[in-house]
C-alpha cells in the first residue's frame, strides 16, 4: 500500500495575518492519499482561514505549501485546482439558477472554439455529468435539473461531485453536513468513504463529532490559530477531542 500512504499535501509553518490580527501561527498539516483528516476547532480557531490558504484564496504571510513533495505557491483557486486540490465550501458555492451539469463544470466547461468565441458543448457536459454522478452513485432525476430544485443533501452531493470531476487528489470540505437533514448526513458520509477508497485525500472541517468519528483516520485541533493537538482516531475519544476544541488537554 505504498501509494495509499503517499504524502499528497503538506503545509509547513503557515502563518496568516490580517492587519494586526494573527489568524494562523506556524500551523502544520499533512494529508496522505486515501486518508481522511478531521480538522476541529472553536469558531475563530483558524479552520476556515487555513482552508482558504490551502485552496489558494488567501496567500500565507509566512510558511510554505508542498504538493507531492514540491513547494508550490498558489496565486488563485485556479492554481490549486490545477494541482488537483479541490474545495467544497460551506455555502457550497453552487449557482442555483444553473443545472447540475453546468455547475459541476462551471469555469472548466468543455467548449468548441470558433475564433475568440467559445461555444459550450452541452452534449459533452451532459454525458460527462451522467457518467460522473453514476460513478459516485449520486441519484438525481436528471443532470438538467436546476440546483435550486435539489434538497440540501443533493446539493452537497453535487458540490462534492463538482470537486472530484477533474481527478482531484485532495478534497477539502468545510462543514459538509452542517446544513443537512439527519437522513441525508449518512449519504454524504458514505460519499466521503467512497472517495477515500479511490485514493483521494479528504480533509473534513467539522463541528460534529459524529462525522469526525464516522469517516476520519486522524484528527487535528486548532486553538487560537495554532496546532493544539493531533492524534490517530483510534488513540483518542470524543471527550478528549471536545476538550481540545475548548483548549484543554
Amino acid at each position, binding site marked *: 500500500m505504498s501509494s495509499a500512504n503517499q504524502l499528497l499535501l503538506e503545509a509547513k509553518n503557515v502563518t496568516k495575518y490580517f492587519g494586526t490580527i494573527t489568524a494562523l501561527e506556524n500551523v502544520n498539516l499533512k494529508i496522505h492519499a486515501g486518508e481522511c483528516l478531521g480538522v476541529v476547532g472553536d469558531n475563530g480557531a483558524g479552520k476556515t482561514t487555513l482552508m482558504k490558504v490551502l485552496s489558494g484564496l488567501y496567500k500565507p504571510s509566512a510558511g510554505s505549501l508542498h504538493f507531492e513533495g514540491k513547494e508550490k505557491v498558489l496565486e488563485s483557486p485556479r492554481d490549486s485546482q490545477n494541482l488537483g486540490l479541490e474545495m467544497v465550501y460551506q455555502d457550497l458555492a453552487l449557482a442555483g439558477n444553473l443545472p447540475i451539469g453546468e455547475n459541476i463544470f462551471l469555469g472548466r466547461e468543455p467548449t468548441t472554439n470558433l475564433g475568440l468565441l*467559445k461555444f*459550450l458543448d452541452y452534449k459533452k457536459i451532459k454525458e460527462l455529468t451522467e457518467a460522473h454522478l453514476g460513478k459516485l452513485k449520486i441519484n438525481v432525476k436528471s443532470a438538467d435539473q436546476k440546483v435550486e430544485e435539489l434538497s440540501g443533501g443533493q446539493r452537497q452531493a453535487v458540490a462534492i461531485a463538482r470537486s472530484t470531476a477533474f481527478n482531484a487528489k485532495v478534497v477539502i470540505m468545510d462543514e459538509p453536513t452542517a446544513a443537512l437533514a439527519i437522513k441525508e448526513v449518512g449519504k454524504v458520509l458514505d460519499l466521503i468513504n467512497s472517495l477515500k477508497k479511490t485514493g483521494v485525500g479528504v480533509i473534513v472541517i467539522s463541528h460534529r463529532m459524529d462525522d469526525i468519528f464516522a469517516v476520519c483516520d486522524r484528527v487535528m485541533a486548532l486553538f487560537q490559530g495554532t496546532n493544539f493537538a493531533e492524534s490517530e482516531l483510534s488513540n483518542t475519544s470524543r471527550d478528549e477531542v471536545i476538550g481540545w476544541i475548548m483548549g484543554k488537554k
Partner: protein
Amino acid sequence: MDSKDQEKDSLYLKLIPYFEKYGILLLLVIMIVVMHFLQPDVFLSWRNVTNVFKQISWQSMLALGVFMVIVTAGIDLSVGSIMMLSLMILAIVAKAGAPWYIVVITPLIAGFLCGLFNGLGITLLRMPHPFIMTLGTLYIFRGTGNLISGGTPISGFTDEVRYLGHGRIDLTWLGLEKSQYLPVSLVLIAIVYIIFWIFMNKTRTGKWIYAIGGNPNAARASGINVNKILVIVYSLCGFLSGIGALILAGRTDSGYPNAGLQSELDAIAACIIGGASFFGGRGTVLGVFAGVMIMGILRNGLNLMDVSSFWQQVLIGSIIVLAVYVDVLRRDFGTRK
C-alpha cells in the same frame, strides 16, 4: 412514490420549463389579439405593425443591454445618457464633414467606451453597487453631451448615416405594394437579438454571466474572473446603447439634448416585464424582446384609441407590478412539491 404521484410530478416537470420560457409570449399574443379586436381595421395593418417596430427599435437595443447587466444582478441607469452622448458625438462628427462610414462607427465606439468606463468604475473603484456608478454616469454622460454640443440640437445627416434607422427594404418584387416595405431597423433588431441570444445561451461567456448572477461567490470559486466578465457586460451594454444612438439618428435626423431622457427606466421596465429578475441569474433574451414588444404595443394601441399619455403611464406602471406578481405566483407553482 406511487405511479400516480410520479405521473403528476412528470407533468409538472414537463410543463414548468415551457411556462417559464414562453409564458410571457402568451401574454404578448393575448395583447395582440385584444388590440386586434379593439382596432380591427388599423392595428394589424402593415403600416401600423411596421410603425410599432420603428418605435421600439432603439428602445429594444437599450433593453437588451440593460438585460445582460440585470442578469449579473447589476443595473445600468446610464444607458439613456450613453445613447444621448453617442448621438451628440455622431452629430458633431457628421457636421464636421467626416465620411459616412466614420460617422456610423463613432456612436458604436463612443457607446462602448462609456460602457467600459462604467465597468471599470464599478470593478476598480469597488463601488458598493452598480446603481451608484451608473447613477453618476447618468449625469456625467448627459452633461458631457450637452457640453460638447452647447445644448442645442444638431440636425441633418446623409442617407447612409440614416439607413439603419430610416431605411426601407422594398418588397415590391414580392408583389406587395410600395407602401408595404420592411423597415431596416426591424431587420437590425432581429439580427442583433439573434446574435445576443446565441451569445447568452451558447457561449461560455454567456453562461458565466448567468453564473455570476446566480451566485457570484460560486463563479469566483470556480476560477471565473468575475470583474473581467462584468467589464465585458457593461461595455456591451454601452455598445448596444451606441447602436440605439445610430438608429435614433436615422429616425429623427437630429442629435438633440433630450434624446433618451428617462429611457433607462423604459429599458429596465421591459426587462422586468420580460421576466428578468433583479436578483440576477434569471431571464431570457426572448423575454426581453417580449417585454419591449408589450410596452410598444401598449403605447401604440392606447394611441390608436386616443387614450391620454397620462393613462399610458398608469397602465405601464400597473403592468410592471402585475408582471412581477405573475412571476411570483409562477415561482410558487414551480417550487411546490
